[in-house]
């Protein structure tokens, strides 16, 4: 299972890449393999205010639908429009082209609540 060292994680299996005040969010390799073929993504909308650990969208796979949680609070500034036509990108490249949305971080203090790669490995029982 691929778990990049430079990212932060949530217990709900999102990853976060923090660059200044912008956070890019996607779901982990573990999450995509558990869901299997993803057929539809309903991301939050640009301009929407999202809250840490609260659902802000859905990911639909062939047999199930999972909620997408926001790892941090803030305003959504961009969503990955490619996913609209090709949601399967998440399966092929969860940490790269399969990113889902970007937010402007409201409270940097919240970053402390996120998991490190090491913690996340433990969380999914890989360590």
């Amino acid at each position: 299972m691929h778990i990049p060292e430079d990212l932060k994680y949530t217990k709900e299996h999102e990853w976060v890449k923090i660059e200044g005040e912008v956070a890019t969010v996607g779901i982990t390799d573990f999450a995509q393999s558990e869901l299997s073929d993803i057929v539809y993504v309903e991301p939050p909308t640009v301009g929407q205010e999202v809250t840490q650990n609260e659902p802000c969208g859905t990911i639909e796979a062939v047999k199930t639908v999972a909620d997408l949680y926001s790892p941090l609070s803030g305003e959504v500034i961009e969503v990955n429009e490619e996913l609209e036509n090709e949601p399967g990108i998440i399966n092929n490249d969860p940490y790269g082209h399969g990113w889902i949305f970007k937010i402007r971080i409201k409270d940097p203090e919240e970053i402390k609540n996120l998991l490190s790669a090491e913690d996340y490995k433990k969380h999914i029982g890989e360590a």
Partner: protein
Amino acid sequence: MPFIPNPEEARKKILDFLNIKNIDELLDVIPEEIRLKEEIPLPYALSEAEVEKYVKRLAGENRRLRIFGGAGAYDHYVPPVVRSVLKNPSFLTAYTPYQAEVSQGTLQAMYEFQTAICELTGMDIANSSMYDGASAFAEAVLMAKRINKKGKVLIADNINPFYKKVCETYTKHILEIEYVKYDKKEGTVDSEDLKQKIDEDVSAFAFQHPNFFGVFENPFKLREITKEKGVLLISIFDPVSISLIAPPGEYDADIAVCEGQPLGLPLSYGGPYAGIFTAKRDFIRMMPGRIAGRAEDVEGKEGYVMVLQTREQHIRREKATSNICTNQMLCALGILVYILYMGKDGLRNVALKTHNNTVKIRDALKKKGYNFPFEGDIFREFVVELKEDAENFVYECVKERGIMPGIPLKKFGLSDKYLLIGATENHGESEINELISLF
């Protein structure tokens, strides 16, 4: 009565596990004073033969009326082929398929029903039916909120009052409803009032066409107004009328619903009926209800499957798109058979004759000096102002002549002299003349 067929041993095990002595202890929370102490006074149980006699006697008390009342359910002719197909036990005994794919015949019927409805309405997608027109409407309003997440819905005040009630019940605590006035002279939506009431919180505007008074709205104009303001348009249409006038797909409705009863289902004291529910393709994941799809198996053979089930409550639990997973499949099948049997020309003829009969009655009453409160053009129904109390008039006609001449509108907050009269293709010339003679 042994409704719970657990053997004594199993009951004891459960009681021991719960650490209680008997089942009554579970009911301790119900206060003593509200418990029923005496036996419920029911008559003795009847044998099958006795029940049959009893029910036949009750049924014998029914009087066959000639019905000119509509207000949402109409006395159209139902060709015997509909009943004949519905009597096939493979269809008749099947409930909503929970192991759907083993019921290929039912799924195929659902798929073909959806296809027929899409062709008839000009809409992109249809589900495989809802409980009835009113609940389909309420679900349409809830769906609009899911689409744009806005909390207010505008509804034309001249839609069917029963639909208003059902919608209010369904949406209480979920969204706010505001009614848009209608022009008291024409009987149609007051477009100025609509424009004025649209604000940032408004998710959708819903109207009925033809409306509750039988009067045609101007759907193209209403679409223009709502489109300009970024508001969804919900149409309640008449499934018979759309063989003559523009169907909802043509005026670009976002969601369109109706009662399917006029297409091949008998009145039978109010049901069961089936709601028809259609929408634009973009909104398919927000749509309630079941959708059947056509697929191919690994060997390339055609088969039918349930699709988009991930929206439904057996997967999404409390976050489901709706809590409708069932449908009125048997009724929907009746509608499908009716549509296929009548064909394009047949449906058009029904609509034409329905309209002609209605206009004939209206013209005759006009000659007799009656006034009509609304001036707009009508399809299958119209409101007439009587010279007496409409409820008394209806009562007398039913009692003395076996004719139900219409629906009095007093109970909907309108004048006690207003009567809503409707005809169908099923009314013969002599029946129509008899009705006219009552006035």
